[in-house]
């Protein structure tokens, strides 16, 4: 319920909301990512649940003021459980004309638009390609919205005029002024951000002071200026008790790898070549030299995976990270890891393709590539992360399976969850599932020659560290004779080995969780089957539809190869199955082929995640169709 607060003769309406979606839009150089992150972290500290979606241009500094150069940061925060960054914006912060132009269409009718009027002069309007003479702030374009016009640039210059800083530095503090204003508007403390500024600029006192001053000026501007008559009050979320942190997907992936290696007692080696949107994993892991983490920036994608294969061969946990174009280059080396049967984790932070495609946008179109994209019969387990925090679980599981089953494993995340963030109730190290890593030191064939391809009941071959006396042997890419591992061109042996390698991967299904209905009930009228980063949007849609009285269920796949043993059975219990994917129906094709379930495919390939509303509409359409 909304209330009225009185202050110095001024009436301020306090709006209560379950959740609010804010979008920050400005130039690449305007510090929108930083502003968004600070607002997000502060909200998290208030105990609000949230989900973020940073969106940046593929160009590092596209021409200032143009729509191509707009950098955006979206956060959905609230007192209810939040699974997506939100479909539409309650609040748009537009630092310039291009920011308004690129994002206005997604602002809710009646929403708030906060503009920096200095970004709406003739020059900026031209750069944003508004027609000659257009004046969006005054010509009625924004008549459906509450518009706060603030000359941020002028106010910051005024506030910082005595700091002795140059104009350039002063202008750089604009984002802090806006952040301060939003803190006032959403009734949040500035403490977290003041702490951040102090830490970041502690050594440059005048910059630190200027940023804090700009932040406080923004807050005070809201507090004292009479034109602002609305504040928002959002309660803390009822989240499970525990200790939380904020985390992005790439960061969670990095931590998952470190934890898995340490739990397995193995050194972690990352061979990687920089590529958007995967590079942050390389950046993060390279910080952990003191933990013995070895990161190797290779000369190319192929060297990256081959160095990781070498590292695994020598006894480490070899990992390589990339995105679609790089994964394509690694294909042959993955085949080598399949036939030599050594542990390896290959991480694909998917982006829009084909070719260079949409480097900074998200997509799920590498599923077929992950499961089938190698020459020959080259089965590899495939795991997908479903949210930023889930990247931790997925990375940890990928390592566990690679080590325990002596196989390369593909982990799929995507740009949306890799860069997005959410609160994470992180586990303690002691609670992490143990990972069994075994190096044999005695022959497995007393009285005869060591048999590097003699398998255990899981069909896993023994692992030997070079340097182990008496077990010298050769492995390689030529077909192996069963048990001895010697080169063999025998046709019957080849067929046997093809079946053995497939059976080994299929058996992994014994050690992964069964598929479960996450929302709704078994045998519902319709099941929405998803995989990967669509989880948040599907979950929100299905929960909404259930609340509206529909018989809808949600099943989400975390293991794409092998799939959970009960999946076919589970899917056959529903009247209808619909599979939303950010590709042209890759999972749908696999499910139909594998289980003969007449699943419907719902696809979106726009470089953007599904919106809840569009999903709901489509689910209802299928539900109500004959």
């Amino acid at each position, binding site marked *: 319920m909304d209330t009225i607060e009185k202050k110095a003769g001024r009436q301020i309406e306090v709006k209560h909301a379950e959740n609010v979606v804010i979008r920050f839009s400005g130039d690449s150089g305007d510090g929108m990512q930083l502003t968004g992150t600070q607002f997000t972290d502060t909200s998290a500290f208030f105990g609000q649940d949230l989900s973020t979606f940073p969106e940046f241009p593929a160009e590092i500094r596209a021409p200032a003021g143009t729509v191509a150069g707009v950098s955006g940061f979206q956060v959905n925060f609230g007192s209810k459980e939040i699974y997506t960054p939100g479909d539409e914006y309650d609040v748009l912060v537009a630092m310039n004309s291009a920011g308004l132009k690129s994002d206005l269409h997604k602002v809710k009718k009646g929403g708030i638009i906060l503009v920096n009027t200095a970004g709406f002069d003739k020059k900026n309007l031209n750069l944003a390609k508004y027609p000659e003479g257009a004046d969006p702030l005054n010509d009625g374009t924004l008549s459906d919205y509450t518009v706060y016009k603030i000359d941020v640039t002028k106010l910051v210059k005024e506030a910082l005029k005595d700091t002795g800083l140059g104009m350039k530095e002063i202008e750089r503090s604009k984002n802090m002024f806006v952040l301060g204003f939003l803190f006032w508007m959403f009734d949040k403390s500035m403490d977290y951000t003041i702490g951040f500024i102090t830490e970041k600029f502690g050594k440059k006192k005048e910059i630190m002071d200027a940023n804090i001053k700009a932040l406080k000026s923004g807050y005070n501007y809201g507090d004292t200026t009479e034109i602002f008559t609305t504040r928002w009050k959002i309660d803390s979320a009822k989240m499970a008790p525990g200790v939380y942190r904020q985390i992005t997907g790439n960061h969670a992936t990095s931590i998952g790898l470190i934890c898995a290696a340490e739990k397995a007692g193995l050194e972690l080696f990352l061979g990687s070549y920089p590529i958007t949107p995967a590079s942050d994993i390389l950046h993060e892991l390279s910080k952990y030299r003191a933990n013995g983490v070895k990161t190797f920036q290779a000369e190319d994608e192929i060297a990256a995976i081959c160095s990781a294969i070498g590292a695994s061969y020598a006894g480490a946990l070899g990992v390589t990270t990339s995105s679609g174009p790089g994964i394509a280059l690694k294909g042959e080396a993955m085949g080598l890891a399949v036939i030599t049967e050594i542990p390896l984790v290959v991480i694909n932070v998917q982006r829009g393709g084909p070719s260079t495609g949409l480097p900074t946008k998200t997509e799920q179109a590498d599923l077929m590539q992950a499961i089938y994209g190698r020459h020959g019969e080259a089965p590899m387990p495939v795991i997908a992360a479903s949210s930023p925090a889930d990247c931790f679980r997925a990375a940890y599981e990928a390592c566990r399976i690679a080590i325990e089953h002596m196989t390369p494993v593909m982990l799929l995340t995507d740009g949306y969850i890799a860069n997005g963030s959410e609160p994470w109730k992180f586990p303690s190290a002691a609670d992490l599932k143990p990972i069994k890593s075994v190096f044999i030191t005695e022959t497995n064939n007393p009285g005869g020659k060591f048999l590097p391809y003699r398998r255990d009941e899981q069909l896993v071959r023994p692992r030997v560290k070079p340097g182990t006396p008496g077990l010298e042997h050769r*492995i390689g890419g030529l077909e192996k004779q069963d048990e001895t591992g010697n080169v063999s061109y025998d046709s019957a042996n080849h067929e046997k080995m093809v079946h053995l390698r497939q059976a080994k991967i299929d058996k992994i299904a014994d050690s992964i969780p069964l598929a479960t209905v996450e929302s709704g009930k078994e045998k519902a009228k319709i099941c929405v089957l998803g995989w990967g980063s669509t989880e948040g949007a599907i979950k929100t849609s299905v929960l909404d539809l259930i609340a509206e009285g529909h018989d809808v269920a949600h099943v989400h796949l975390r293991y794409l190869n092998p799939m959970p043993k009960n999946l076919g059975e589970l899917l056959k219990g529903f009247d209808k199955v619909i599979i939303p994917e950010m590709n042209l129906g890759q999972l749908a094709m696999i499910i139909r082929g594998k289980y003969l379930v007449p699943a419907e495919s719902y696809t979106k390939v726009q470089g953007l995640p599904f919106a809840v509303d569009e999903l709901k509409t489509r689910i209802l359409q299928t539900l109500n169709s004959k």
Partner: protein
Amino acid sequence: MSADTTTAKLTAKDFSSDQDVKWCPGCGDYAILAQVQRIFPEFDVKKEDVVFVSGIGCSSRFTYYMDTYGMHSIHGRAAAVVSGIRATNPNLDVWMISGDGDSLSIGGNHFIHLLRRNFNVKYLMFNNQIYGLTKGQYSPASEKGKNTKSTPFGSLDEPFNPAELALGAKGTFVARTLDRDAKHQQAILKRAHEHKGTAFVEIYQNCPVFNDGAFFTYTEKETKMEECLFVEHGKPLVFGANSDKGIKLDGLKPVIVDLAGGASVNDLWIHDETDRMKATLLAGLFDNPAMNPHNPRPFGVFYKENRATYEDDLINQINAVKAKKGSTPLDRILSGDKTWTIA
């Protein structure tokens, strides 16, 4: 086999695997395999610490014939595999076997990057100036104009001079030897093994099927002494059947002089394998022996430099950061700097 074989005196046979060697009869690879197996017992290294890694091609089957640890990897990428091995376990004695196609064509990128990083790896590149395993196409080391299956009217590309390329890529040890000169080959391989860093050895190797006699000018006794310039550190550049010719430097230009005709050995170019500039000039002696006149082809260690290896720098960096920051406990990594509690 038991663990104490590691201390017993080994012989060449101990390094020979139980697999049949399947190169063509008369292939130069046999001679190289024999020399490598012969010199290994002389090294102060445990057999179980030895790893051979190869790419793809005739030469790369080598790995299967050594009774050590080994990986026959993929075409051109052995250099990346050995980098990962050395970065992980610097106690292993890592040898890489590759050919001219594997190293200079499909693996050209990894070749130059391995050399500049200077991982401690013995890199033997068997150069037969042809693609053997794919049955006779020209390679990046083939002479221009070569008639092969894929170039029936002659190849159009200028060949690489591998030693020159290795020096250009900041290699710290660059040498050349011959399959048919067992003594020279052994001496060079031993020098390579002593080197701490990437030791690049180009071995001229005869392919009797697709490029027979490519190096006979240098290996057969009728022409060998006139055409080969065997260099040794600190010694003047002398060649010829009667050691009657020498090379002196006229500025940066090598000039052949006739020692029998009055030139003094004291004026000759003295080989200094620590001098990168002169090593580059030496490696640059790459004349076609059909030209007249032409310089002899040099063999031996052209260049050797002591430079930190990548893996040593990596471990030193780890230790330095560890000493300064200490390792972070897992629970601290999981929690990060900023947490909040929901009651």
